[in-house]
Protein backbone atom coordinates (compact mmCIF):
# COMPACT_ATOMS: atom_id res chain seq x y z
CA UNK A 1 0.00 0.00 0.00
CA UNK A 2 2.58 2.54 1.13
CA UNK A 3 2.42 5.57 -1.11
CA UNK A 4 -0.50 4.45 -3.28
CA UNK A 5 -3.22 5.79 -1.03
CA UNK A 6 -1.53 9.02 0.07
CA UNK A 7 -3.91 11.88 -0.96
CA UNK A 8 -2.62 13.72 -4.05
CA UNK A 9 -0.80 17.08 -3.98
CA UNK A 10 -1.11 20.23 -6.09
CA UNK A 11 2.06 19.63 -8.11
CA UNK A 12 3.19 16.14 -9.14
CA UNK A 13 6.53 15.67 -10.83
CA UNK A 14 7.44 12.03 -11.20
CA UNK A 15 11.12 12.67 -10.62
CA UNK A 16 10.55 15.03 -7.72
CA UNK A 17 8.15 12.60 -6.07
CA UNK A 18 10.70 9.82 -6.43
CA UNK A 19 13.34 11.97 -4.74
CA UNK A 20 10.95 13.04 -1.98
CA UNK A 21 9.94 9.42 -1.34
CA UNK A 22 13.60 8.42 -0.97
CA UNK A 23 13.91 11.20 1.60
CA UNK A 24 10.81 9.96 3.40
CA UNK A 25 11.99 6.38 3.31
CA UNK A 26 15.26 7.28 4.94
CA UNK A 27 13.89 9.27 7.85
CA UNK A 28 10.81 7.74 9.45
CA UNK A 29 9.95 9.53 12.69
CA UNK A 30 7.99 7.03 14.82
CA UNK A 31 5.43 8.20 17.38
CA UNK A 32 6.41 7.15 20.95
CA UNK A 33 3.39 4.98 21.43
CA UNK A 34 4.43 1.96 23.44
CA UNK A 35 1.47 0.12 24.93
CA UNK A 36 2.91 -3.09 26.36
CA UNK A 37 5.79 -5.58 26.10
CA UNK A 38 6.57 -4.75 22.46
CA UNK A 39 7.31 -1.17 23.55
CA UNK A 40 10.29 -2.47 25.54
CA UNK A 41 11.63 -4.23 22.45
CA UNK A 42 11.01 -1.01 20.47
CA UNK A 43 13.06 0.93 23.02
CA UNK A 44 15.76 -1.73 22.96
CA UNK A 45 15.84 -1.35 19.17
CA UNK A 46 16.22 2.39 19.57
CA UNK A 47 19.19 1.99 21.89
CA UNK A 48 22.86 1.32 21.32
CA UNK A 49 23.03 -2.34 20.39
CA UNK A 50 20.37 -2.65 17.66
CA UNK A 51 20.53 1.02 16.75
CA UNK A 52 17.52 2.08 14.71
CA UNK A 53 19.36 5.27 13.74
CA UNK A 54 21.27 3.34 11.08
CA UNK A 55 17.97 3.53 9.14
CA UNK A 56 17.12 7.06 10.22
CA UNK A 57 14.27 5.99 12.47
CA UNK A 58 15.59 6.70 15.95
CA UNK A 59 13.87 10.06 16.49
CA UNK A 60 10.88 9.08 18.64
CA UNK A 61 8.47 12.04 18.57
CA UNK A 62 6.08 12.23 21.53
CA UNK A 63 3.56 14.45 19.74
CA UNK A 64 1.54 13.13 16.84
CA UNK A 65 2.02 16.31 14.85
CA UNK A 66 5.68 15.60 14.14
CA UNK A 67 5.64 11.85 13.50
CA UNK A 68 5.32 9.86 10.29
CA UNK A 69 4.96 6.27 11.49
CA UNK A 70 2.62 5.02 14.19
CA UNK A 71 4.17 1.81 15.54
CA UNK A 72 1.30 0.10 17.39
CA UNK A 73 3.38 -1.83 19.93
CA UNK A 74 1.06 -3.82 22.20
CA UNK A 75 -2.47 -4.94 22.88
CA UNK A 76 -5.28 -2.60 21.88
CA UNK A 77 -8.13 -2.60 24.37
CA UNK A 78 -11.63 -1.32 23.73
CA UNK A 79 -10.97 1.52 26.20
CA UNK A 80 -7.84 2.59 24.29
CA UNK A 81 -9.30 2.45 20.75
CA UNK A 82 -10.77 5.99 20.63
CA UNK A 83 -7.43 7.31 21.80
CA UNK A 84 -5.59 5.53 18.99
CA UNK A 85 -8.08 6.81 16.43
CA UNK A 86 -7.55 10.38 17.65
CA UNK A 87 -3.79 9.97 17.47
CA UNK A 88 -4.02 8.58 13.94
CA UNK A 89 -6.11 11.56 12.85
CA UNK A 90 -3.75 14.06 14.39
CA UNK A 91 -0.79 12.72 12.45
CA UNK A 92 -0.07 14.72 9.27
CA UNK A 93 0.11 12.99 5.89
CA UNK A 94 2.03 11.04 4.69
CA UNK A 95 1.60 8.60 7.58
CA UNK A 96 2.06 4.87 7.89
CA UNK A 97 1.10 2.28 10.50
CA UNK A 98 3.22 -0.66 11.62
CA UNK A 99 1.56 -3.40 13.71
CA UNK A 100 4.31 -4.63 16.04
CA UNK A 101 3.74 -7.96 17.75
CA UNK A 102 0.98 -10.59 17.70
CA UNK A 103 -1.34 -8.48 19.86
CA UNK A 104 -1.35 -5.66 17.31
CA UNK A 105 -1.76 -8.12 14.44
CA UNK A 106 -4.56 -10.33 15.73
CA UNK A 107 -5.00 -9.95 19.49
CA UNK A 108 -2.19 -12.44 20.10
CA UNK A 109 -2.29 -14.55 23.29
CA UNK A 110 -5.24 -12.54 24.63
CA UNK A 111 -7.67 -13.49 21.86
CA UNK A 112 -9.56 -16.34 23.57
CA UNK A 113 -13.31 -16.95 23.42
CA UNK A 114 -14.94 -15.26 26.35
CA UNK A 115 -12.61 -12.24 26.20
CA UNK A 116 -14.32 -8.94 26.69
CA UNK A 117 -11.85 -6.08 26.41
CA UNK A 118 -9.50 -6.62 23.45
CA UNK A 119 -9.68 -5.38 19.84
CA UNK A 120 -8.46 -8.29 17.72
CA UNK A 121 -5.72 -6.53 15.82
CA UNK A 122 -4.87 -2.97 14.70
CA UNK A 123 -6.20 -3.54 11.19
CA UNK A 124 -9.76 -3.66 12.55
CA UNK A 125 -9.78 0.14 12.47
CA UNK A 126 -6.36 1.27 11.16
CA UNK A 127 -4.88 0.91 7.63
CA UNK A 128 -1.83 -1.15 8.61
CA UNK A 129 1.12 -1.15 6.19
CA UNK A 130 3.62 -3.52 7.80
CA UNK A 131 2.87 -6.46 10.13
CA UNK A 132 5.72 -7.68 12.39
CA UNK A 133 4.88 -11.00 14.04
CA UNK A 134 6.44 -12.16 17.33
CA UNK A 135 5.59 -12.00 20.99
CA UNK A 136 7.51 -9.77 21.42
CA UNK A 137 9.30 -9.65 18.07
CA UNK A 138 13.08 -9.44 18.33
CA UNK A 139 14.61 -6.01 17.65
CA UNK A 140 15.99 -7.36 14.36
CA UNK A 141 12.41 -8.09 13.29
CA UNK A 142 11.46 -4.46 13.91
CA UNK A 143 14.46 -3.32 11.87
CA UNK A 144 13.37 -5.58 9.01
CA UNK A 145 9.89 -4.11 9.35
CA UNK A 146 11.32 -0.65 8.85
CA UNK A 147 13.20 -1.81 5.78
CA UNK A 148 9.99 -3.38 4.44
CA UNK A 149 8.25 -0.05 4.94
CA UNK A 150 11.09 1.63 3.05
CA UNK A 151 10.51 -0.71 0.11
CA UNK A 152 6.81 0.15 0.25
CA UNK A 153 7.44 3.88 0.30
CA UNK A 154 10.03 4.13 -2.46
CA UNK A 155 11.43 1.54 -4.84
CA UNK A 156 14.96 2.59 -3.81
CA UNK A 157 16.74 -0.46 -2.36
CA UNK A 158 19.12 -0.03 0.51
CA UNK A 159 21.14 -3.08 -0.68
CA UNK A 160 20.79 -5.53 -3.48
CA UNK A 161 18.31 -8.35 -2.84
CA UNK A 162 20.54 -11.25 -1.63
CA UNK A 163 18.31 -13.97 -3.18
CA UNK A 164 18.14 -12.28 -6.56
CA UNK A 165 21.86 -12.41 -7.50
Amino acid at each position, binding site marked *: MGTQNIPSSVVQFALADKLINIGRANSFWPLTFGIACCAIEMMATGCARFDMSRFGAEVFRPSARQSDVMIVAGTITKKMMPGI*KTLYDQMPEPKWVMALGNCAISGGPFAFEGQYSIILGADVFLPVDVYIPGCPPRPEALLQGIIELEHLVSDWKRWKNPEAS
Partner: protein
Amino acid sequence: MEHQFSAFLYQEHVLWIAAFTLGGLAFALGPIAIVYLFMPLQTRQLSNKALQFIECGMDPIGDSWIRYGVVFYLYALIFLAFDVDVLFLFPVATVYNTGLFASSIRDFIEIVLFVGILALAIVYAWIKGVFKWERKTFLRR
Protein backbone atom coordinates in the same frame (compact mmCIF):
# COMPACT_ATOMS: atom_id res chain seq x y z
CA MET B 1 28.39 66.38 -10.79
CA GLU B 2 28.59 66.08 -7.17
CA HIS B 3 24.82 66.19 -6.83
CA GLN B 4 24.05 63.52 -9.48
CA PHE B 5 26.73 61.24 -8.10
CA SER B 6 25.25 61.37 -4.61
CA ALA B 7 21.75 60.85 -6.10
CA PHE B 8 23.11 57.79 -7.83
CA LEU B 9 24.64 56.61 -4.59
CA TYR B 10 21.28 57.15 -3.02
CA GLN B 11 19.53 54.92 -5.65
CA GLU B 12 22.14 52.20 -5.41
CA HIS B 13 21.60 51.96 -1.68
CA VAL B 14 17.89 51.53 -2.26
CA LEU B 15 18.59 48.72 -4.71
CA TRP B 16 20.81 46.96 -2.20
CA ILE B 17 18.23 47.23 0.55
CA ALA B 18 15.42 46.06 -1.74
CA ALA B 19 17.50 43.12 -2.92
CA PHE B 20 18.28 42.03 0.59
CA THR B 21 14.69 42.31 1.86
CA LEU B 22 13.33 40.43 -1.14
CA GLY B 23 16.01 37.80 -0.74
CA GLY B 24 15.13 37.46 2.93
CA LEU B 25 11.43 37.17 2.20
CA ALA B 26 12.03 34.63 -0.57
CA PHE B 27 14.32 32.66 1.70
CA ALA B 28 11.63 32.63 4.42
CA LEU B 29 8.47 32.12 2.39
CA GLY B 30 9.97 30.00 -0.38
CA PRO B 31 10.04 26.67 1.48
CA ILE B 32 6.50 27.27 2.70
CA ALA B 33 5.36 27.67 -0.89
CA ILE B 34 7.30 24.61 -2.05
CA VAL B 35 5.89 22.52 0.78
CA TYR B 36 2.37 23.69 -0.05
CA LEU B 37 2.86 22.58 -3.66
CA PHE B 38 4.18 19.13 -2.82
CA MET B 39 2.24 18.32 0.38
CA PRO B 40 -0.81 16.02 0.27
CA LEU B 41 -3.90 18.18 0.44
CA GLN B 42 -5.97 16.30 3.04
CA THR B 43 -5.21 13.66 5.64
CA ARG B 44 -6.92 10.31 6.04
CA GLN B 45 -9.04 10.46 9.18
CA LEU B 46 -11.04 7.97 11.22
CA SER B 47 -12.94 10.13 13.65
CA ASN B 48 -12.44 13.57 12.07
CA LYS B 49 -10.24 14.88 14.91
CA ALA B 50 -7.30 16.12 12.82
CA LEU B 51 -7.46 19.69 14.08
CA GLN B 52 -8.14 18.85 17.71
CA PHE B 53 -5.58 19.96 20.31
CA ILE B 54 -3.11 17.24 21.21
CA GLU B 55 -3.94 15.92 24.68
CA CYS B 56 -2.20 12.53 24.64
CA GLY B 57 -4.95 10.98 22.56
CA MET B 58 -7.82 12.09 24.77
CA ASP B 59 -10.36 14.86 24.21
CA PRO B 60 -9.32 18.04 26.03
CA ILE B 61 -11.47 18.71 29.11
CA GLY B 62 -12.61 22.27 29.73
CA ASP B 63 -11.14 25.40 28.14
CA SER B 64 -7.52 26.45 28.32
CA TRP B 65 -8.26 30.17 28.04
CA ILE B 66 -8.17 30.90 31.77
CA ARG B 67 -6.38 33.45 33.93
CA TYR B 68 -3.62 31.99 36.07
CA GLY B 69 -0.80 33.50 38.06
CA VAL B 70 2.30 34.15 35.96
CA VAL B 71 4.96 33.77 38.62
CA PHE B 72 7.90 35.60 37.03
CA TYR B 73 5.84 38.48 35.63
CA LEU B 74 7.85 41.34 37.21
CA TYR B 75 11.10 39.57 36.33
CA ALA B 76 10.07 39.73 32.68
CA LEU B 77 9.31 43.44 32.96
CA ILE B 78 12.75 44.13 34.40
CA PHE B 79 14.33 42.20 31.56
CA LEU B 80 12.45 44.43 29.13
CA ALA B 81 13.75 47.56 30.84
CA PHE B 82 17.35 46.41 30.72
CA ASP B 83 16.92 45.35 27.14
CA VAL B 84 16.30 49.00 26.32
CA ASP B 85 19.30 49.88 28.46
CA VAL B 86 21.50 47.67 26.30
CA LEU B 87 20.11 49.50 23.28
CA PHE B 88 21.79 52.68 24.48
CA LEU B 89 25.14 50.93 24.58
CA PHE B 90 25.14 50.10 20.84
CA PRO B 91 25.88 53.67 19.59
CA VAL B 92 28.49 54.00 22.35
CA ALA B 93 30.21 50.92 21.05
CA THR B 94 30.60 52.46 17.60
CA VAL B 95 32.41 55.53 18.86
CA TYR B 96 34.21 54.00 21.81
CA ASN B 97 37.94 54.89 21.98
CA THR B 98 37.83 57.16 18.92
CA GLY B 99 37.69 60.91 18.50
CA LEU B 100 38.80 63.40 21.14
CA PHE B 101 39.37 61.18 24.17
CA ALA B 102 40.93 58.23 22.37
CA SER B 103 43.14 55.93 24.47
CA SER B 104 42.13 57.65 27.68
CA ILE B 105 40.18 56.09 30.54
CA ARG B 106 37.37 58.65 30.38
CA ASP B 107 35.12 56.68 28.03
CA PHE B 108 35.30 53.63 30.23
CA ILE B 109 34.40 55.53 33.42
CA GLU B 110 31.49 57.21 31.68
CA ILE B 111 30.03 53.86 30.65
CA VAL B 112 30.57 52.29 34.06
CA LEU B 113 28.75 55.21 35.67
CA PHE B 114 25.85 54.89 33.23
CA VAL B 115 25.43 51.15 33.76
CA GLY B 116 26.02 51.44 37.51
CA ILE B 117 23.17 53.89 38.01
CA LEU B 118 20.85 51.64 36.04
CA ALA B 119 22.01 48.62 38.04
CA LEU B 120 20.59 50.25 41.13
CA ALA B 121 17.16 49.37 39.75
CA ILE B 122 18.08 45.71 39.93
CA VAL B 123 19.13 46.04 43.54
CA TYR B 124 15.79 47.66 44.31
CA ALA B 125 13.90 44.86 42.56
CA TRP B 126 15.98 42.26 44.37
CA ILE B 127 15.09 43.66 47.73
CA LYS B 128 11.41 43.83 46.76
CA GLY B 129 11.61 40.09 46.15
CA VAL B 130 10.98 40.05 42.42
CA PHE B 131 13.46 37.23 41.89
CA LYS B 132 11.96 34.94 44.57
CA TRP B 133 9.79 32.14 43.12
CA GLU B 134 6.51 32.07 44.96
CA ARG B 135 3.08 31.23 43.65
CA LYS B 136 0.66 33.89 42.56
CA THR B 137 -2.51 33.32 44.55
CA PHE B 138 -5.45 35.68 44.37
CA LEU B 139 -7.61 36.57 47.35
CA ARG B 140 -11.06 36.76 45.79
CA ARG B 141 -13.33 38.54 48.25
